[in-house]
Every structure is written in C-alpha cells, then in structure tokens.
C-alpha cells in the first residue's frame, strides 16, 4: 500500500501514472488514424494482441473475484462465484439483458453477504 506517503507525493504519483496511461492509450488511437488504409488488421500480430488483451482483462477480473482486496475480501469466495453465476443465469433468462444481469449479480452478492 502507498498509504504512508504524503498527500502531495500521492497526488504527484497518481498524476504521473494517469498521464502516462492516457498517453499510452492514445498512442494506439493516433497510430490507428496514421496507419489506416496502410495496414491489414487481420494479420498474426493483431491476433496475438487480441489474445493478450482478453487474457489480461480475464486475469484481472478473475483475480478480483477469486482473490479480492479491500472491502470485497470481507465476502466469501463462493458467494462471489455464485453471484456471478446468478448474473449469468439472469442474462439468459431475461432476453439477454446485460443491465439486468449485472444488477442481479451485484444484488445477489449483497443479499448473500447480508444473510451470512
């Protein structure tokens, strides 16, 4: 944790992280304009990029569900997994409504955790 640092140091630190993250993100968007019409996007490199992107997001959210930090860590792992399953079930049960599915998922974690 970075709690021990001073307020100003924290602001400077996250400000730098934010600036670099924003630039790193814009890099791809700007390059996309520059390279449009000149590169094929269905090549091997982009296939690999797709894999890395999906794997990274899946890795992060699975870790948050299985080994959370902070407040989520006070709930039970099987409750979080069950809540995900209920959300998924709601998605298919109610005409593929993602908004409803997410609400059911988050709502059932509140209920499961409360009933404990």
């Amino acid at each position, binding site marked *: 944790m970075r709690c021990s640092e001073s307020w100003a140091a924290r602001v400077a630190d996250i400000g730098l992280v934010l600036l670099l*993250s924003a630039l790193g*993100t814009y890099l791809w968007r700007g390059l996309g304009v520059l390279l449009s019409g000149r590169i094929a996007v269905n090549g091997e490199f982009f296939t690999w990029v797709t*894999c890395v*992107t999906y*794997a990274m997001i899946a890795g992060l959210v699975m870790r948050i569900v299985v080994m959370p930090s902070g407040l989520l860590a006070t709930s039970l792992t099987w409750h979080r997994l069950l809540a995900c399953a209920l959300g998924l079930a709601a998605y298919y049960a109610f005409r593929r409504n*993602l908004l409803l599915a997410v609400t059911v998922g988050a709502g059932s974690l509140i209920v499961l955790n409360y009933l404990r």
Partner: protein
Amino acid sequence: MQSAAFRTGVRESFGVPGGVLAATYIGFGALAFSGGIPVWVVIASTITIWALPGQLVMVDMWQIGAPTIAILLAVTLTNARFLPMTVTVMPVIRDRGHPEWIYYVAAQCVAMSSWIICMRRGPELPARERVAYLGGLAAGFIAIGVVAAVVGYYIAESIPPVMQIGMVFLAPVYFIIFLIVEVRTRLVAIALACGGIAGPLLYLLTPQWSVLLAGFIGGTLAYALQRKLGRTRG
C-alpha cells in the same frame, strides 16, 4: 448539418448501451472510492483514458503499489485493441471535406461502446456527417461515464459497507458476464481461459506484475495453442 449529426450522436448515446455504461462506471467509481483513489483521478481517467478495462487495470495496480512502468505497460497493452478498432472505423468516417487533424481528435472517441454503434450506424449517414456523429456519440457516452463514476464514488462513500460491497462488485461482475457471453471464437475462449487461470496464479507469485504477466503469458499461450489446434485441424 454537422451540429445536427452531433446532436443525433448525443441522443443515441442515451439508450440501452448508455445504461449499461452507466452501471459499469457507477461500479468503477465505487471501486475507486474503496481503493482510496481521489475523485479527480476518477473523472480525469474517464475523459483521458476512456476505456474501462484500462482504467480498472490502472486503479487496481496503483492500489497494490505496482511500479509505474508496470502500470504503464499493462494499461498500454490492454488498450492495444484501439489500433485495429481505429484502423477499421477510419474508412467509415473519413471524408475529403474535413481536415486531417479532425481524425486525430475523433480517435479519442474510439472505445468499445461508440465503435460498435458507429460501425453499424455510420454507413447509413452521409459521409460528411459521420465524424460529427461519432463525436456526439462519444461525448454523450463520456458524459454518462463521468457522471456515473462520480455518482458511484459518492454513493459508495455514503452507504453502509453491506451495500457498498455490491457496488464494488458491479464492474467485475459486468466483465465476467460480458466476456463469457461475448465469446464468438475459439481463440477468444482460449485467451479468456488462459488469462483467467494465469491471473490469480501469478498474483500469488508477484502481485505487482501479475496483470501484465497474465496478459503476456496467458495471451501468448492462447495464441500458440490456437495455432497448434488450427494446424492439427487444417
């Protein structure tokens, strides 16, 4: 004419996709609050990064004290999808009547929500108006995202932990469901499985580098597996 197209874009952002976006950004705001992130970072990241997975990666890694270079690499790599997305949306929105710099501004509007809609709706509009339409769409979505994130942040601050836990869970549960139901190809399925297993395992080894490594190792493994499977099949 241009401003009419912009307004059409703004109007169309307030639909079902806008609702889902609001729910996820409410969750992001709550998650950021519980992670001790200042509210200005929540607002600024929504405008400047404008990509929820990248924002989640940034907030999560910063919270556990990951090195700046690891955060930069992980966020940059998760957002690499914007290159092919921008490349494919450009022929849709490009028109000779506009100066080139317009497209470098429009590129910031490229995110999953606006990209999907623009790819579908764009060809139905006159070529000249499409950039303005995309701009309006993104402006609406970004406004929804910023407002929702701030609302989520302050709601999380004011409700008891019993309720807060559900709000913090909104963004993760959204991605779990979205990723599972959006699997269209075997490649994506393998990549999700590899990353989903690698993420928690690598977290045990090296929390600070786990997100970056899970993407890199899990993704490369998935890519190699797909090639191998493709070969045995074909």
